[in-house]
């Protein structure tokens, strides 16, 4: 009974993340890739995404802590974030990366700073929700099923 409840909670969480734009259909496609042959696929991808994103943010922070910020050094890092977040299916974070690019094209340094902070904020919210998702997944799997969406 407990695992049924966790499945419902997980489904509700994913639904709300989809509704609120934290996730999109790309993520639901990832969920469809998880099966008996790759039971931990979603968890593995999320863990990789969070690990790599954390590393990129450390590099961004190093650049941003310089006396004079050289945004040319931030560009490839945001580029990387955009690539991975849209591949995972995180549209809000992707949009923040696009906004950064727009500010860069307009040579708007203040805009770039705001955009970098927005990317961080969106990522932090997403990461917290992912942690909840993975905790629910683990509780479901402890109950004997490996389907992330209650199937």
């Amino acid at each position, binding site marked *: 009974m407990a695992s049924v409840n966790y499945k419902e909670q997980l489904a509700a969480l994913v639904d709300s993340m989809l509704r609120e734009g934290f996730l999109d259909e*790309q993520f639901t*496609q*990832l969920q*469809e*890739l998880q099966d008996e042959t*790759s039971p931990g*696929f979603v968890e*593995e*991808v999320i863990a*990789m*995404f969070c690990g*790599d994103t954390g590393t990129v943010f450390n590099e961004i922070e190093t650049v941003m802590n310089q006396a004079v910020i050289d945004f040319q050094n931030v560009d*490839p890092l945001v*580029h*990387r974030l*955009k*690539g*991975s977040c*849209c*591949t*995972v*299916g995180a549209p809000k974070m992707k949009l923040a990366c*696009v906004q950064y*690019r727009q500010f860069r094209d307009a040579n708007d340094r203040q805009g770039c700073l705001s955009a970098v902070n927005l990317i961080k904020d969106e990522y932090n919210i997403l990461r917290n929700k992912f942690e909840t998702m993975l905790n629910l997944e683990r509780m479901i799997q402890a109950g004997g099923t490996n389907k992330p969406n209650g199937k």
Partner: protein
Amino acid sequence: MDDSESPNPMHTLRALIVNDCRVEQAILVGTLRALGVESLVANNAEEAQEIIYEGAVVDLIIMDKDMPVMDDVIHATRRLRAMGVTAKILGIITFYTREAVLDFLYAGADDVVLKPVRIKKLISIIEEINNGI
């Protein structure tokens, strides 16, 4: 080097993923596996060329333009075609610019898409490969 011949008509398709981001690598490998396609992975354009040069036969190459040395990817695409590689080459880009698309196409890519690579796109490419298009 002719990589378009198959040992038998029902051979398992094989892809070479050229991408330095492990998240994107994992998702592409997983997606292609679900579609019945085996994958090799190269972390950069140079590795990709080495893999092909050493004799790997692939049906599809998915080339990410946005790796640290971007021009290498275009150059690698051109070189692979010059080597006689006839595999489908799908270029993927992170931010759309007309220039990025044209660079890839002129270098010999068959198609260019914006990330993320959708399953529907991969399915249509696989169908083209299977139909010899």
